[in-house]
């Protein structure tokens, strides 16, 4: 797959629109999911995911072909989501705990397909409950947990995507795992 993508990127660099369409199709679900989990709602997720692809297209000449394309793309997407989170709350710090409302927003969005309100309150399905717990992690832990366990990046790749030292990635993934363990051990 990497080889096909590499080929496509060469075509994009020569100005081939259609080749870029293939790239978007290949990565759209992954990038959309990443943005959704970072931002917690589908409107912003779609908005930012689209923006990420457009930026990738505009800046394709600054992509170094010796490195993995997905790492580069996720880096763009992650930076955009972090920018958006900062803008959402002017006094927002990455260290601060995310308030529960955001998770509830996301939950109500996900469960909006025709369920009765009583059902929603009663039966927090396991799926939604887990997602809510992930959504409530502070973004700096959330991004790493997702990149590692949902998107299957190595710790080294995560350090490249987030542009932080690998030691920091390790510390954060330990803390993220512990935080989720406490929330999920009674499930």
């Amino acid at each position, binding site marked *: 797959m990497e080889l096909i993508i590499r080929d496509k990127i060469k075509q994009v660099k020569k100005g081939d629109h259609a080749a870029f369409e293939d790239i978007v199709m290949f990565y759209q679900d992954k990038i959309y999911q990443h943005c959704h989990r970072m931002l917690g709602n589908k409107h912003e997720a779609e908005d930012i995911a689209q923006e990420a692809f457009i930026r990738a297209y505009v800046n394709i000449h600054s992509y170094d072909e010796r490195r993995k394309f997905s790492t580069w793309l996720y880096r763009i997407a992650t930076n955009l989501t972090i920018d958006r989170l900062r803008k959402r709350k002017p006094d927002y710090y990455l260290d601060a705990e995310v308030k529960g409302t955001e998770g509830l927003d996301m939950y109500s969005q996900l469960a909006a397909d025709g369920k009765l309100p009583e059902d929603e309150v009663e039966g927090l399905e396991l799926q939604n409950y887990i997602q809510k717990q992930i959504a409530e992690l502070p973004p700096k832990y959330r991004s790493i947990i997702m990149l590692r366990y949902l998107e299957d990046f190595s710790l080294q790749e995560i350090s490249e995507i987030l542009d932080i030292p690998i030691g920091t990635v390790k510390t954060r993934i330990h803390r993220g*795992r512990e935080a989720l363990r406490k929330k999920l051990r009674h499930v």
Partner: protein
Amino acid sequence: MDCNKEALEMMHKHLDGDITREEESLLRSHLEGCVECQKHLHELKRTITLIQSTEKLKAPDDFTSKVMQQLPVEKKHVKYLRWFKMHPILTAAAIFFVFMFTGLLSAFEQDSQLMVSNPEDLIIEDNLVIVPEGVTVQGDLVVQNGNLKIDGKVDGNVTLINGNLVEEQGLDSSGLMADVGGVNGELKEVDRIFEWVWYNIQKMVKGIFSIE
């Protein structure tokens, strides 16, 4: 072993695939005797499984087409820029020619001073250069931005740039050409810009190929 410190640290190393063999056997022997830590590790592993079990989200159906609609139309200068990047040799050649021609043009416009290639034995009055009678100029003679009057002899080619050859105002100026003295070579007058450029190029090419 301290359960909350060392053992915990090793568990996370184990989960990250960072653990050494030594540490692994230490952890294993600790786990055999410590139910608390067994439980802890089990919970951590289960947490990971639970995270991975969450349903995958899909982008909306029209996602790709929306992105494609929003792509910026390439501006012309971007196109040219990319072309230049992809053809560095042609670009270098183009830049070279631009510089060469502008250099020559500005030289042509700026050099309005009188210049004579070998002024020995010649008389120079204002803009007029005179080869006096009885004098023979050895070699080629180039006069720039001045007129030339030849009473003596030139043993070589004569080139006039931005100037004219002045004829002797004799009594019989009614139409007969005065004798132009002796020029034992070609006589060239250059006063138009392209001829001047052409002359310079010829000179350069001659210079390149006649290195002895």
